[in-house]
């Protein structure tokens, strides 16, 4: 049985506001899934450097040639709130 999941902390990290009911449900569901992982986490697996990609692909870097994509209007077209060409949000402190 894994450690009890601190669902509030995880929700904070994920910037998700959960109500009490959700917290309970999710804690239960997640614990169940995590328990399912027990077998995997106990496996003794080699420590080689792992590529995240299944096919170890080659990275093609892009040439430094600039071009215009979105117009100013397109960029703001889905903005929930904007003013003077800028996106507006409630105050973001720190």
């Amino acid at each position, binding site marked *: 049985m894994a450690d009890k999941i601190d669902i509030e902390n995880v929700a904070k990290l994920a910037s998700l506001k959960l109500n009490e009911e959700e917290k309970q449900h999710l804690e239960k569901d997640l614990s169940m899934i995590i328990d399912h992982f027990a077998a995997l986490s106990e496996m003794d697996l080699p420590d080689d450097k792992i590529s995240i990609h299944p096919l*170890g692909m080659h990275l093609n870097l892009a040439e430094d040639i600039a071009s215009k994509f979105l117009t100013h209007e397109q960029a703001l077209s889905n903005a929930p709130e904007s003013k003077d060409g800028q996106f*507006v949000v409630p105050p973001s402190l720190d």
Partner: protein
Amino acid sequence: MSIIPTIGMETHVELKTNSKMFCRCHVLDTDIPNESLCPTCLGLPGSLPVPNKKAIEFITLLALSTNCSITNDGMFHRKNYFYPDLPKNYQISQFDLPVGTEGSLEVVVDGEFGTVEIERVHMEEDTGKSTHMGSGRIDSATSTHLDFNRAGIPLVEVVTKPLIKSSREAVAYIEELRQLVIDLGISEGKLEKGNLRFDANISVAHDGDKELGTKVEIKNMNSLRSLEKAIEYEISRQTKMLLNEENIIQETRHWDEKKEVTTSMRSKEGSADYRYFSDPDIPNMILSDDFVNEVKSSIPVLPSQKRTVFIDSGLSIEDANSLVKSPNWIGDLYKSVSSITNDSKTSFNWITGELQGQLRKLELKSIPSWLTAKNLSEIITLVKENKISFTSGKEILGKLIEEELVPEEYAVNNKLIQENDIDEISKMVKDVLDDNKDVLERISNGEDKLIGFLVGQIIKLSKGKVNPSVAKELLLKELNS
């Protein structure tokens, strides 16, 4: 029991590539907000990052120039945190496999050489710009405006080891790093434009303590002056607390430019959990030996190398350093002038003192094409040889800035050539003495101050052409006899 401060610097260098780090939007310097955007840098659903080759070349150049080991098989990581100016709410950065590690940078602190050790050099992307609207105080803003033009611009982060020992060293380090990125051609290096931004990590401990004290991060220093002041303030604040056995909290503090203090930033208790994991949108970045060698072969003359050349020419470390930190044309001019005049110190003084001083007064940033090493050297030599006074030399220089002329010709035409002939001057001395018998009497009664008056009369008589020191010497001889 003395308290030792320890400083580590984290610097972000904006690269001057044409396009952004992970997309091909222009890196624009514009007043129009949200003008240079695409799905990738705006964080639209479905967009993907593709790294900029030039940015990788630039960071490799910087890493090699600071003697770093290059990570041949590196990767990009996602640094996860939520903030409105971060379009994807994660920043593509590098975690445990940065491009460069274990480097160093030679610095000059108070006229002496020092070395700052560099822990890592890594690649990441910049965020957008937030402007807090409202009454102006950060904690009473009514809204925040966001401009994403800057989002995605390539940034190189350079982190030093926590081994810097003073605010002067920290400043010297930033000055050196700045000059390096300018000379490498990878950044404009303008602090006022935000091309170079830095935070300082500061801790204090008792001398002899094996462990470092609690480190405090200081942000919002926008100039070298504020860097120095902020470090000094923070060291003093922490030292007082340490001596009072007060607990220093690990936190991020904000330098208040107006009040000249560091203040606690709200929230942020403890360190954030960024949940780094390698970015699945970007395969491993393999930097081949060929690639690294090609970059290595393109390293231009470094500031430290220029400094060595200047020192070898006869300048002090301090003077050599100031030339290195000046625009290229000044150092080049110095090299030419000092080799013609064969006098490094005098050439240095004329160029950095007189010439730069006059240019500054006229608000000029460079010299006109006719102001060459040759004719500047001519002025310097004329003064050195006492053919003209120093004041005349300044005058000719001033004229030369305005218009093309041949210094010696100008001196002759404007009767600036000094009278150095002993017999001629002796005649003038005798004439002045004859005309000022009352003054002579007063001098013989002890009023030595009036000697200057007599010298002045001699200069007047010669219409300014007499060499004042020769005149004085002959006058004194005459008086003493």
